[in-house]
């Protein structure tokens, strides 16, 4: 780690911490209401979903339209786990229960990712897209018909363990992990498949294994997102995880820029907050939202950030009129919130 990267890391850590403090103070002193707190939590969850989807959609370059299914698996299993834990040990510390059940949900979603990824990753492009849609629907229909987890009525009584702090820091951790994945030999291997699968294989990358790995990691984090969601809502039902929800996540990723993690973050914020801002417009809300989507795509078809990453370190350098720092790789170690 050279001094520049160190500085960038430190800068980002400070920024992440500052943002947290600012939000916390604003909410503590009632400048921002709990409603905003809820929106922030949801934004965090959508960030996790978008970033995890970006591993498959952006890094690997595959059209994955069944992300809601992995979220559902994570949500249901983690919810079920924490209900069981809370029944057995009513005094168990919230954070521990949340982390444990999130891991259960994440692992379950990851296993589902292996199960669906191994056979279907032989397909490419739109065909993979349609298989993932199919998988998503099958998972949803399964939960409708599976009564031990509430069936169509949904799973009620999940402890509401997700609060702003937990959501924020878990998101920061997930963002960090996905960033570090991107700038490692694993990330490069995944991206090489996106660029040219045949050349990647010919360069010694075991493409099938790497693809399944990417799919699994992506589903794992989706499961974590699902767990946060379940513990925020306290109630989940299969209807939430419809095909359109997967599409919404995909829209976030493409709008942010495929393969750009900071783009996904930005876009998750915009697309979660925008409908809330438009809430006052009553029935015009979705009309404006959909039109905004079309216009944004026409103006910036490559997404808000394209494939580049926003780097705070870089920005400060440019703002202070110094020479641009040396930047290695298209994905930098920088992250921001």
């Amino acid at each position, binding site marked *: 780690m050279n001094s520049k990267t160190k500085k960038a890391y430190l800068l980002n850590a400070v920024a992440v911490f500052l943002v947290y403090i600012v939000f916390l103070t604003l909410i503590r002193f009632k400048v921002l209401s709990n409603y905003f707190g809820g929106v922030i939590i949801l934004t965090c969850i959508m960030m996790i979903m978008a970033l995890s989807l970006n591993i498959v959609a952006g890094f690997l370059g595959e059209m994955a339209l069944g992300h809601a299914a992995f979220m559902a698996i994570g949500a249901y299993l983690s919810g079920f786990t924490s209900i069981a834990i809370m029944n057995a040990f009513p005094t168990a510390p919230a954070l521990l229960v949340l982390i444990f059940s999130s891991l259960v949900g994440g692992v379950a979603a990851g296993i589902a990712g292996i199960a669906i990824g191994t056979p279907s990753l032989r397909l*490419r492009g739109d065909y993979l897209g349609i298989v993932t849609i199919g998988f998503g629907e099958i998972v949803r229909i399964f939960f409708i018909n599976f009564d031990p987890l509430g069936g169509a009525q949904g799973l009620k009584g999940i402890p509401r363990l997700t609060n702003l702090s937990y959501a924020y820091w878990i998101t920061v951790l997930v963002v960090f992990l996905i960033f570090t994945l991107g700038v490692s030999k694993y990330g490069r291997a995944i991206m090489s498949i996106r660029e040219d699968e045949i050349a990647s294989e010919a360069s010694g990358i075991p493409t099938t294994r790497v693809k399944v790995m990417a799919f699994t990691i992506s589903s794992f984090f989706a499961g974590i997102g699902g767990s946060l969601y379940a513990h925020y809502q306290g109630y989940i039902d299969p209807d939430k995880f419809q095909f359109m929800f997967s599409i919404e996540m995909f829209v976030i990723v493409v709008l942010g820029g*495929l393969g750009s993690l900071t783009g996904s973050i930005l876009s998750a914020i915009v697309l979660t907050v925008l409908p809330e801002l438009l809430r006052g417009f009553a029935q015009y809300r979705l009309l404006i939202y959909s039109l905004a989507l079309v216009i944004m795509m026409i103006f910036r078809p490559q997404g808000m950030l394209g494939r580049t990453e926003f780097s705070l370190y870089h920005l400060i350098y440019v703002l202070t009129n110094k020479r641009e720092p040396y930047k290695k790789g298209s994905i930098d170690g920088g992250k921001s919130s």
Partner: protein
Amino acid sequence: MKLFFQQVINGLNSGSIYALIAIGYTLVYGILKLINFAHGEIMMFGAYFSFIAAATMDMPFWFVIIFSMGLSAILGMLVEFVAYRPLRQAPRLSALITAIGVSMFLQNVSLMVFGADPKVMPRIFPNVVFNIFGIEISSITLITIGLSVFFMILLELFISHTKQGRAMRAVSENQDAAILMGINVNRTVSITFLIGSALGALGGILYSTAYTNIAPTMGTMPGLKAFVAAVLGGIGSVPGAMLGGFLIGMIENMSKAYISTTWADAIVFLILIIVLLFKPTGILGKDIKEKV
């Protein structure tokens, strides 16, 4: 046995509607490599147009059909012109997102214009139930199947025997080369949307006639299933879309009749996944191996 044949008829009925809608997906995909998510909404508008023609203007049924197909065709072309054409050179996924946006937009426009309560499609064909060897077939089923097959044959003739049809094939194969032959790509794309949307509208009319209900969200599910049908048959292939449509209709009805009504959709998707795993480009899709 009687029950089985009854279910076959049911399957053919819904299958022919899926097939009509699937053609629209397949045509557009063939030419622009775009999954036109808004196609289900075009179908929905087709149903509303026919509702307006039949319920408020009291037109004869052939006019209802022409009126609705015509308006929907214009709507389809308009969507292409406004939302897809500016993105012709953009990454394909961006166009896909635009299509999703257009789909949401149209759905909400229809919600505002036509209201949330479902409308009931008046019967534009007389309904008579025929009893053939104990199997009951309603005239609506016969008309649905008949009209679908008629238009599918018409389309096949158009594509293989007319100049414009050949132009469509050429553009879907190689756009650059097609331009060099003097083919107007923009016009060809417009015509593709025209045909696809008109057939989608017909699907909407028949769908709403058979199932009586018209609502702003009615396009979503049949749209998705028709898209599945197009992929199952081999997206880009017109005969594939027809075959896929009938297959999906049949699978759906048979699983409802003999396996489980609530798992029927899951079974449809499962079969799709299995078919794709063994034949990655769909049943009639052409295997194009990437050259190394």
